[in-house]
Every structure is written in C-alpha cells, then in structure tokens.
C-alpha cells in the first residue's frame, strides 16, 4: 500500500473515558487517520460506548481555581464530534458503532450525532472491509 493511497482502518476501543491514557492515544491515532482522509471504522465495546455519551458536561475545578469556562474540561464526546468532522472535511469518514448491548447495560443510549448503535456483526464487516484492524483493549 503506497503512502498516497486511501486506507480504510478499523479501531476497536474498550476503555471508558477519563480512566486511561489509552483513550487519548487512540484518539490521537484517529486524528492522524482523519487528517489523511482515511475511511475509519470505530467499534466501541464495553466502557468505550461512553466516549460519545451526549450528557458529558464540563465542571469547575476548585483545586485549579478555575470556573467551568476557565477549566474548559475536555469531553471525549467533543473529541468524537471533532474527529467525525475532520474526517469528512478531509474527504474521509468515520463510521462509529457503539456496541448496542454495551449501551443498554450502561444506559448510555444518548450519543452525539454521527454515532450509531451496532452489533458484533458490524465489527466483522468493518474488519473485512479494512486494510487493518487495531484493537485497544482495557487491562
């Protein structure tokens, strides 16, 4: 595969937000792929279905001496939205599928726009259509 050819990548995420540096690293990898206009599939499994959870909210941080606006706390749902927009802007796409049963058991059924409910069959399909698949599991 040449550097200029368009790739299709599948990334499987498993970590819940705010608990592991793996999430940030995964998002950075997705960002590179989005900037390159790749077609990206994300299968969010288990706690990762909370990454695009729409009800995440920012908060003040008294330890930092910041109000909510000053703290401007990062929210993974905004990262997901930004990544989807970046992919589209660069001629690519992100098909983000949240494992439906994982959503149900967590009550995480409110996701940002661009995220859909999926099943393990989606992951099979994603992988079959991808140049490669990266699994980033929880530990």
């Amino acid at each position: 595969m040449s550097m200029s050819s368009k790739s299709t990548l599948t990334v499987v995420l498993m970590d819940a937000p705010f608990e592991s540096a793996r999430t940030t690293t995964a998002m950075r990898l997705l960002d590179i792929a989005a900037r390159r206009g790749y077609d990206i599939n994300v299968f969010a499994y288990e706690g990762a279905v909370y990454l695009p959870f729409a009800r995440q909210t920012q908060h003040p941080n008294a330890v930092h001496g910041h109000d909510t606006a000053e703290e401007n706390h990062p929210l993974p749902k905004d990262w997901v939205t930004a990544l989807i927009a970046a992919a589209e802007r660069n001629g690519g796409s992100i098909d983000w599928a949240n494992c439906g049963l994982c959503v149900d058991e967590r009550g995480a059924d409110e996701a940002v726009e661009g995220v859909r409910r999926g099943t393990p069959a989606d992951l099979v399909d994603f992988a079959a259509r991808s140049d490669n698949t990266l699994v980033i599991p929880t530990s």
Partner: protein
Amino acid sequence: MKVLQIINTAYRATIEEQDDTVVWLTHAMTGAGGDFDVLLAGNAVNYTVERQDAAGLSFGDWRQTQPPRLGHDVAGLIGKHVRVYVVDEDVREIGLTAVTQVDGFTRIARAELADLFDHYDQIWRW
C-alpha cells in the same frame, strides 16, 4: 479473512458480564459469519478449567442467578469449530496440569506462536 483473537488477560468483569467479554464477542462474531480462532495466554489459560464455580454471589437480598461459566463458554467455541489454542508454558506455570480441562483445545509452545500467527490475516490482542 481469518482472525486470531489473543486473550491474555482473564476475568475482566466476568462476574458483572457473566462471561468473558472477548469470548462472548467471538461467539457473536462467529455467529455473524466471521472466521475466528482463539489463543489463550497468561492467566486466561485458566478459562480451560472445566469445574470453575463462581456461583453464590449475593449483596443483601440480591442473588446472582447466572454466574459465568467460562469453561463451558470456551467449550462452546470449540463446538462451533473455533480452534482454541492454549500456551503450554502458561498452563504449566500456573499449575493446571492436575485439574480437569475442557476437551478439544490445542496446546502450543511459545516458540511455535510466530508460525501460528502466519496462518492468520489479522491478529487481535485483547
């Protein structure tokens, strides 16, 4: 496309999920037409032990009625023609040689893993 699922970490939320989530996912994806095999390594080799019993969990009046049955679930994969490999050194290191294990899995030495990986299009390490 043939995929080898490597399960290297065992008992991640198996009480809450009442199964291993990657074993479960492999069942589901096999049912969806995927072509998967499994390699159990590290403490996950314990999933081959037949008589694991996680029953009896209770909190107050709440009782768990469907505890995980990991040996059963691994045997179920084998029953679906998923090849289950188990790292032989890990089996011996945690002392499983004297317990009853499920039928049908294949022991493999660490030195043979590279050759095994050559038979797959993708390797997913969980």
